[in-house]
């Protein structure tokens, strides 16, 4: 009996010590286990959505694939963990996922008090409202007294409270944990209004049986910069994720696409040479791939796998997709948008 008890105590203690020790650096951990664990939504068309074969697609998904391509030269080396809005940060903090790419809004509170770091803004969004057309409401300012369905643990929930308060309007919130529950309740008539990021409104509208009976109101009541998140205090991994995002933008800016990345390798443009890690005549590389712990051709790997930012956008949410979203604020800075990356030099 005594021996058994001691055995258990010993096992328990050693496993705890092991748990403490196994936290070298996320990049090394990821390389060692052979895949990137990516936290995504539970289904948001255009951003992260699984099909019948559990193949994930979307802008947020492609970002994780880009990171996997940068690390492993294989966009399939990603495992996806669907997370609720409420559980997403805990999953990242506890190490259950390596990166959270789940239409998550960058705020000061999240950046400073949750032990997390936002690596960039892959989609500039804003919060909107959707109502049934039969209500005859044409402005969010006419929503006083309405019941509003939303998801708990989101900035949406907070903006909603601020918006109604600052406009001296009365409302009743019904906050669910999962997005499907919000949609079901809205369609069952529990609420008059459904609110989330505007891209989400358009995406979720596609799931309705009768999308034409719902309208998105013109008001955008908040700034929702959505982007990938990593744990604080792991600069190497933070750099990999941040510069994967910048590489996608720089590639679009320099005209590097999946189709032409092969020819671009031999480009005479020094900017492109640095971006793609082309070898100089003396065999030294122009880029910084090894500097952030990857191969020199990490950007080539990314572009071959998922394309540049523009390609990812058009493929998942662009005008030729069911979502039909124009680039708008998400155009490059050179085209009047907000997407801007520091130079690779």
């Amino acid at each position: 009996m005594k021996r058994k008890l001691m055995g258990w105590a010993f096992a328990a203690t050693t496993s705890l010590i092991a748990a403490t020790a196994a936290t070298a650096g996320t990049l090394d951990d990821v390389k060692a286990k052979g895949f990137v664990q990516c936290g995504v939504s539970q289904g948001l068309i255009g951003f992260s959505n699984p099909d019948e074969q559990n193949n994930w697609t979307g802008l947020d998904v492609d970002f994780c694939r880009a990171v996997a391509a940068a690390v492993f030269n294989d966009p399939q080396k990603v495992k996806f963990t669907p997370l609720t809005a409420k559980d997403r940060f805990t999953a990242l903090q506890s190490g259950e996922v390596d990166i959270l790419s789940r239409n998550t809004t960058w705020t000061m509170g999240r950046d400073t008090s949750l032990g997390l770091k936002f690596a960039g803004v892959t989609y500039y969004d804003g919060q909107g409202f959707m109502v049934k057309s039969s209500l005859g409401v044409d402005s969010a300012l006419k929503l006083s007294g309405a019941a509003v369905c939303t998801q708990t643990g989101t900035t949406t929930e907070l903006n909603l409270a601020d918006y109604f308060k600052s406009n001296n309007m009365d409302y009743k919130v019904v906050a669910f944990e999962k997005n499907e529950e919000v949609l079901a309740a809205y369609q069952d008539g529990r609420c008059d209004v459904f609110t989330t990021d505007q891209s989400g409104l358009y995406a979720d509208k596609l799931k309705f049986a009768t999308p034409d009976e719902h309208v998105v109101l013109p008001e955008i009541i908040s700034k929702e910069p959505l982007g990938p998140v990593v744990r604080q205090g792991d600069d190497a991994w933070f750099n990999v994720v941040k510069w994967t995002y910048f590489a996608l933008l720089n590639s679009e800016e320099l005209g590097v696409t999946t189709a032409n990345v092969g020819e671009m390798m031999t480009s005479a443009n020094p900017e492109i040479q640095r971006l793609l890690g082309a070898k100089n005549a003396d065999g030294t590389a122009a880029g910084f791939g090894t500097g952030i712990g990857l191969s020199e051709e990490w950007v080539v790997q990314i572009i071959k796998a998922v394309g540049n930012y523009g390609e990812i956008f058009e493929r998942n949410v662009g005008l030729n997709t069911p979502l039909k979203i124009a680039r708008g604020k998400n155009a490059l800075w050179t085209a009047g948008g907000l997407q801007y990356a520091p130079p690779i030099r």
Partner: protein
Amino acid sequence: MSAFDDTRTPRVPFWNDPRTRSIAVQLIMVVALVAVGYELYVNASANLAKLGKTFGFDFWDKSAGFDISQSLIPYTSSSSYGTAIIVGFWNTLLIACFGILFATLIGFTVGIMRLSKNWLISRIATVYVETIRNIPLLLQIFIWYGAVLKPLPGPKQALNVGGFYLSNRGLNMPAPIFEGAAWMGLAGLVGGIVGAILLRRWARARQLATGEAFPYISVGFALIVFMPFLGLLLAGWPVTWDVPVLGAFQLSGGVTVNPEFIALLIALSVYTASFIAEIVRAGIQAVSHGQTEAAGALGLRQSSITRLVTIPQAMRIIIPPLASQYLNLTKNSSLAVAIAYPDLVAMGGTVLNQTGKAIEIVLIWMIVYLSLSLLTSSFMNWYNSRMKLVER
């Protein structure tokens, strides 16, 4: 000398001495426990430090920023996180109290139905028990939520029965507003309760003395119901009603019972009642048949036999497992989060998401549920010892 002693009382080697052994085992257990606790502490604080987070409850007073659909205490989006958690706590308590009440009522009814000699009634009870307790509770909560929301009309077509409006926004009821001398009503209520207790005492004494029974239960109940009305009438009826009115979107005013609360209450009480029914049936069947026969031989009516002979003896068997069903119901109420009922777990989860204070929130959850459970079980233990067979 010592050699002589050794032969007289053969010394057991100390490692085979049961007393040393027991002390050693306990010591090792304590050391191991402390080591595990220390390791947990070190591990948690190291991981927190790595993420640049601290342990503490300083978030408690910070402004929450979100609204809550149902609150028993004053709450706005500028209230603190602490208030939000307390709102959740009261909501948990509310659903637990109502759930326990209804589960007990349904459970006792179905349990007694199962023993009915009427084939149809006992079969209905059996089907109820076997169906309900074999379907996962979470599923039942979703089903009831759908059943509450889907068939009910929108707020503009709400079913109106005597000022009560039922729609997919819940049940809107007129709320009484008491003014001025309304304390007379409260005095009437207190008077009614005291009167009922005195009446019971008098009726029992009279029955012991003369053998004549007095229907003190129904009369006492009538006292409790009518005395407050009498008090209010004497005060000149200082009551006005806050009636629900249809606004642009939904009914406002009066008291609103949210559909989430209704669905959760039905699901929890129906589910727990199926277990209580079995406990009640087992308890009643455990009372020896001789007891009922003896009561019959004394000339008691069937209803009196059940009330005076069977149930009191069955209660001794029923109460302990009943207590654990009450605990289950309270803890199961945390599934509320699935249908947007703002209970303790839902509110704590939202606060956790915003503040990142995982350890603190989980601690609050554990302490609250533990205290609720301990409170319930100590009350049930007290009740059990009261109902226990008193040996003379």
